[in-house]
């Protein structure tokens, strides 16, 4: 009970922190930073577009690691972590896709173009959506955990191929703007640091969602076990 309380309080604390940080970030983004020279106000979408992708990538990576850990250790909590991470990752990837489409409508005049980067981002989304579909279709918990862990590993390879593929083709999508990707001076330092601040905020949101989802998985397993028990009686 005490442990549960502690967990709940930590969760609330993280959620409040995320909300405060997001509010502060929004204030700076909307009031503090000036419009961009060429794009005007719409460039501000990058403060969500990029961090959402980074957060999704972290989630996919987490899903890969926990899937591999599940296959090695066969502990149900790794399976729950992988499922939760994939779901949260899909949500952030959707934010990334949708904000990108809104930006494209304003700047390029079209919602979508079959550019390599856009295509691969969509492919990743579909692959991980398949993962969630597979989970729903398998009833036996240990078979579900095992098969979806294998699928998650396969899925990550296609994400990695995608990641490399972006560098192999010329794309219409803007190139790297961050210093860590070797784009020196492409962006004002104040704007660049804002991207990282908002990434932190989205990571916090992601962590809260992840914890809630994991708790749900755990409860579902407990209920399932109780049901089986009752059935046996």
């Amino acid at each position, binding site marked *: 009970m005490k442990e549960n309380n502690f967990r709940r309080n930590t969760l609330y604390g993280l959620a409040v922190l995320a909300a405060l940080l997001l509010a502060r970030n929004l204030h700076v983004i909307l009031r503090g930073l000036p419009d961009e020279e060429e794009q005007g106000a719409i460039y501000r979408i990058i403060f969500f577009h990029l961090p959402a992708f980074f957060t999704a990538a972290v989630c996919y990576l987490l899903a890969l690691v926990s899937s591999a850990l599940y296959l090695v250790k066969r502990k149900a909590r790794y399976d729950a972590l992988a499922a939760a991470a994939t779901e949260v990752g899909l949500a952030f990837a959707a934010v990334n896709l949708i904000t990108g489409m809104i930006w494209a409508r304003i700047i390029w005049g079209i919602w979508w173009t079959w550019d390599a980067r856009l295509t691969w981002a969509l492919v990743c989304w579909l692959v991980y959506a398949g993962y969630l579909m597979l989970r729903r*279709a398998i009833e036996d918990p240990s078979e579900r955990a095992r098969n979806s862990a294998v*699928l998650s590993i396969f899925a990550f390879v296609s994400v990695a191929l*995608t990641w490399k593929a972006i560098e192999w083709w010329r794309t219409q999508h803007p190139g790297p703007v961050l210093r860590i990707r070797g784009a020196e001076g492409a962006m004002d330092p104040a704007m660049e640091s804002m991207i990282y601040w908002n990434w932190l905020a989205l990571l916090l949101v992601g962590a809260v969602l992840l914890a809630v989802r994991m708790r749900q998985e755990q409860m579902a397993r407990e209920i399932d076990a109780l049901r089986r028990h009752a059935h046996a009686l």
Partner: protein
Amino acid sequence: MRFLRQCLTIAVKDLRSELRSKEAINASLSFALVILLLFSFAFDPTAEHTREISGGLLWLVFAFAGALILNRSFSRELTNDCLEALIAAPISGSALFLGKALANMLLLLAVEMICLPVFGVFYNARWTGQFPTLLSVTVLATWGLTVIGTMFSALTVNLRLRELMLPALVYPMMIPALMAAMQLTTLLIAGEPIAGEQLVWLRLLIGFDIIFTALALALAETVLVG
């Protein structure tokens, strides 16, 4: 050596039972021909058009036809608990997997080799110009498709809705290989060489095959045995 012999035994068994019943290959071949026909309504099959989209058209046909073969690969073993017997047999899961993948690839290749001339006749395309290269690209891509497909066929074999699940899961995963195959095939049928910037597609295709074959062999035991 023993591993290869075990793979071959499984592959020969699968091919023999398929050639006797002709369940999957008949369905797959007639489906492929129907799609080839349907595509002619989707666009005007003039020489100019066909040259531009030949790769995409052919590989969509192959991917659809392939799903029918792959769907049957493991589910045919469900009757009389044959799958349990295969798993209990003194061979490793990876040998079982590789044997099945090999048989699937040969079946799909056979369907493809029948579809190619039909495509050439219906769409007025000259596909024989660079046939050896085209054949190698086809073999590479077909292997990629069958490795992924056989793995997913094993993953979904116990599902109630496996006929619905397999295509939804497998096509997004195949996209890198399919895209590469489409680009290369279009080039080859248009009579252009694979060189310069286009080599990236060949690299992608080979990389895809190597990575997924290795992963599938490593994980086959886990999927099949548990």
